[in-house]
């Protein structure tokens, strides 16, 4: 049984500062981490492997830094990692990204299950999983908060707004996971050392038989601007010598605002 997990390494959100002039987030040079939900997809795959055997493969479209990020995936328990790194593939939209990932999945081949987070936390897109399922003609189970494999079928508890659906599909299939599915393990020092000896393969466009120009042309969504909305709050500190005084002042202020009757 071979599982392939789609991972994206993204800037550490807590480290992103905002340019005070342009209000643009400064992401250059920010340390990157595997997006939290993708990491949970990896954890889910490792747990399925622990129960059902087989191997777990990590796959990422990234750049030279992504190799370092993949070491964490290997330390957690992935058996091998593939990074697609081609200068022509920077800043692709979800359509083009999915074309690249689908080509890489085909090249790795022989998979029973493809897993990913339901979204990555940088773009908040929720697209790549279902898109890859479509491109590879796989059934999809999205928003899984539990996943297991038995008798050649995958079963997931699908977390919808008002209902949990227990759903099954034959293999191969694609599963996206929500935060509730698990807590990712923290790799031990020994496993971190071992990770460096595991296979990590880097592919560029020609390795996947892709025409980089055609892929770029399939990137349809353009980002016009990204800004952090200015905090337009009064930011008034209620100064007082006691809790009672602070509470009394606050109550009065809220009445003055008309939000308390």
């Amino acid at each position, binding site marked *: 049984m071979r599982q392939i997990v789609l991972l994206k390494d993204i*800037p550490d*959100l*807590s480290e*992103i500062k*905002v340019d005070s002039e342009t209000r643009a*987030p400064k*992401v250059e040079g920010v340390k990157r981490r595997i997006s939290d939900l993708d990491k949970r997809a990896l954890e889910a795959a490792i747990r399925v492997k622990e129960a059902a055997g087989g191997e777990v493969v990590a796959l990422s479209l990234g750049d030279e830094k992504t190799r370092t990020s993949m070491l964490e995936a290997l330390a957690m328990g992935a058996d091998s990692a593939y990074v697609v790194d081609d200068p022509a593939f920077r800043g692709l939209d*979800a*359509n083009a990204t*999915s074309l690249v990932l689908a080509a890489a999945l085909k090249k790795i081949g022989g998979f029973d299950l493809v897993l990913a987070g339901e979204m990555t*936390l940088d773009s*908040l897109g*929720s*697209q*790549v999983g*279902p*898109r890859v*399922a*479509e*491109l590879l003609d796989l*059934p*999809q189970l*999205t928003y899984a908060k539990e996943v297991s494999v038995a008798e050649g079928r995958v*079963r997931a508890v699908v*977390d*919808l707004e*008002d209902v*949990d*659906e*227990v*759903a099954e*599909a034959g293999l191969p299939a694609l599963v996206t996971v929500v*935060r509730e599915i698990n807590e990712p393990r923290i790799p031990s020092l020994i496993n971190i050392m071992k990770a460096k000896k595991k296979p990590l393969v880097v592919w560029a466009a020609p390795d996947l038989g892709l025409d980089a120009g055609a892929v770029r042309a399939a990137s*349809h*969504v*353009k*980002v*016009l*601007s*990204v*800004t*952090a*909305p200015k905090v337009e*709050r*009064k*930011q*008034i*500190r*209620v100064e*007082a010598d006691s*809790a009672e005084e*602070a*509470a*009394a002042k*606050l*109550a009065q202020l*809220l009445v003055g*605002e008309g*939000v*308390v009757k």
Partner: protein
Amino acid sequence: MRFLVYSEEPEVGLQLVGRARALADETGGEAVALTASDASPYFGVGADRVVKVVGVEGHDVEHWRLALVKAVELAKPDVVLMGATRRGKALAPRLAAALRVGCMTECTSVGVVGGEVVVERLTYGGSTVARETCTSRPAIVTVPPRTYERPEPAEKAGETVELRVETPEPRVRVVERRPKPRSTVDLENAPVIVSAGRGFKAKEDLRILEELAEVLGAQIGCTRPISADLGWLDQWVGISGKKVRPSLYVACGISGTIQHVAGIRDSQIIVSINSDESAGIHGLSDYSVVGDLYQVVPALTKALKARA
């Protein structure tokens, strides 16, 4: 521009038809709705035509992808507007991949600028707003429920086109449905919310928040850890939970992570009570008290009661 609108939630579909109508009028275009249920309400909110899907039952994502690919062939829209419910968010990218077109998800606004669809959506965990456009035809756009208000229905009729879809045996089988206990709390529409963060040391201590809620006529919210990790309350406020828009939001013992703050941005007045002077929430509030919530919250309850 021509808009094709679909959501499996009829109410969301009506909201989006309303938006599509406004944009169609702006651009001299058309609003077409897609549904498997009753077509008539869509005319009342501005649909020029309704494509009525016949032959698709239930919510199988691949069946609906088939129906939508056919509907796109039929209606030739410039933009497909879909509801960003979880089912909608599972379907929209699958449709987009089938058509090899661009998709923009969870858009907080949709407009047309210079003949191109331009949206706003949150990025970087909810801390930033991106303006995006899409060069493909159609562009797929998903919009969360209640982003746009459903227009007042008018007495109108229009043309209904039947779209027959042959569906194969579904590959995903739903073997059990477990309805979630309906929460009695409607945070998204609550006019006042008092909310708990990790500053609360024990579940029993939420009692002081309940007392404050009672005097304010407020609902009780919390941060993700309080709900998802500790299970003290059944729903949390934030980018991954409920996005709220009360006139008053009182954050008690909340540090103010970007994921949480993204969910309270539309509040009219934000108050923070946190003993940590350096907590980020203070700078994101209208009024902040640096103090022990175990003292300030009961004192505030008392002060408000004294006024009543």
